[in-house]
């Protein structure tokens, strides 16, 4: 399955030891005993996680459970985590907001900091893959949310990362755009085979996309499930619904809540999704976190 071996796994946390050759050869991420506290609030509490090369892992968790904290540690953005974090040197991150540099045109954003002589051609090819080659000379401010996020995806993939970190990359997109982005992401991941960690609060999204779903709770991985459903997947399959129920109960969320009319309940799946609490509840929490993360005061 893995098309390459990221044998050059390097420690991300500055204080982590460098265990030569300790990482299994097929692993892209080896996290052991990672801790992170903010004041006396322990967010990550001795977390362990291994991601295989080319493996697509989705991480679920309540808002505030530490998903972004872990992802930032893997991205090398958090010098204060303790424990051992081994990641490949070639990593790329897509955040919930595209974070394109507004003063660089789309193509320049995609190839930002690439030093290869053929960077422009590669950037252009990456834009073609996300269907935005015609926007190469556009300013980011003129793009729609979905387009900007596709540029962010192109910017990540043009670097041929061994590890792709996605922090709720579809959280700010509308439902229709999101569905198209799922297909695009799957197609691109299939082609380049990076190891992927997709952080999300959307159970359906996790099951649709991932080879494996983990649940982050109490600062650790509380559940680690392989997704054995055949691809392409659909929300209406029996196996899908069973897996969703299992994950929701692991998250301690009762799916049949709210004022669903008995008449609506008879419509089965449709009513379930209409009352799906994960979308509304968690996304607002995620937004408020991202305000913390995006504010310039916090980490300066």
């Amino acid at each position: 399955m893995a098309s390459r071996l990221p044998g050059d796994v390097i420690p991300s946390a500055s204080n982590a030891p460098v265990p030569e050759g300790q990482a299994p050869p097929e692993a892209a991420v080896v996290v052991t005993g990672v801790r992170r506290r903010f004041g006396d609030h322990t967010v990550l509490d001795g977390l362990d996680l291994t991601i295989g090369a080319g493996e697509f892992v989705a991480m679920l968790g309540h808002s505030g459970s530490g998903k972004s904290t872990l992802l930032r540690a893997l991205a090398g953005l958090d010098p204060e985590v303790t424990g051992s974090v081994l990641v490949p040197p070639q990593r790329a991150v897509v955040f919930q907001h595209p974070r394109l540099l507004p003063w660089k045109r789309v193509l320049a954003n995609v190839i930002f900091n690439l030093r290869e002589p053929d960077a422009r051609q590669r950037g252009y090819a990456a834009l073609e893959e996300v269907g935005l080659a015609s926007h190469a000379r556009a300013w980011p401010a003129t793009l729609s949310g979905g387009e900007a996020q596709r540029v962010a995806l192109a910017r990540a993939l043009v670097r041929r990362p061994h590890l792709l970190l996605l922090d709720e990359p579809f959280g700010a997109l509308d439902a229709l755009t999101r569905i198209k982005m799922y297909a695009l992401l799957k197609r691109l991941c299939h082609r380049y085979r990076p190891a992927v960690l997709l952080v999300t609060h959307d159970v359906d999204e996790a099951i649709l996309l991932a080879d494996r779903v983990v649940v982050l709770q109490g600062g650790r991985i509380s559940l680690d499930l392989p997704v054995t459903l055949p691809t392409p997947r659909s929300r209406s399959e029996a196996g899908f619904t069973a897996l969703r129920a299992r994950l929701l109960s692991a998250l301690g969320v009762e799916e049949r809540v709210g004022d669903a009319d008995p008449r609506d309940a008879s419509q089965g799946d449709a009513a379930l999704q209409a009352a799906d609490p994960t979308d509304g509840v968690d996304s607002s929490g995620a937004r408020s976190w991202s305000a913390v993360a995006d504010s310039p005061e916090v980490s300066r």
Partner: protein
Amino acid sequence: MTTLDSRVTTPVGSLAASREPRPSPPTTLIEVAGPSRPTKRVLLPRWLRKLYGPVALLLLWWSTSATGLLDPDLFPPPGAVVGATTDLIADGELFLHVWASIQRVLYGLLFGVLGGTVLAVLSGLTRIGEDLLDSTMQILKAVPNYALTPLLIMWMGIGEEPKILLIALGVGIAIYINTYSAIRGVDNALVEAATTLGASRAALIWHVILPGSLPGFLVGLRLALSGAWLSLIFAETINTTEGIGYLMTRAQNLLQSEVSVLILVIYAVIGMISYAFVRFLERRLLAWRPGFQGT
């Protein structure tokens, strides 16, 4: 591969039908877009339409002078001002004085912009720079810089140096204050994103922080330019026989009201040119900003 989000297709009509009162239809509909609302036709280009106000003012001046409504001893008619102007142009005086002033302002801008930018970058990017510079600059900002005139004269004499320094100080402070706060205000999310793309510190400064603070720098430049001409007036009260300020003082002493009005016009024209220059820079440098057309 996936189904549409069912919220899109869930029927909701049946709920409203039985229990809710029917919504009453609005009595009239108004058209906010459509064929009977033709888009306004623009007859003249924008820059020309911007001259409406000044031209109206000129006409008012001319007509009130012609009808005697405006006392020519208190406010000279346009003809007298034009006459005084042609005289000053003919003997080369006008050019001499305006050019002397422009040179002072250009030097003041050069040193002020350079100094202000360098200090803003130092204190925006380094802790020690901030500790050393920021409160000093904030204090300097609170001092009206022409209050420094006597000290500058004592230190530097009455040559060009104190004049240029006075202008440079005002420019430098305006540039510093705005550029510094713009550097501090650069979106940290962008800095982080660039970091994950492997940007070095130099690349971060050059590609993220400096472009991100450019709008603030340009605000500073705009303030600096208008401030520079203001400082010039004070600078040219320091002993000189050249410059618009000298011309102004002389006109005041000789009760030449035409020349005084001419000087008002010169300041106005210079102000407009400075403004146009900054707008030009903004249009060139900030084309990326959302909705920025650059009027």
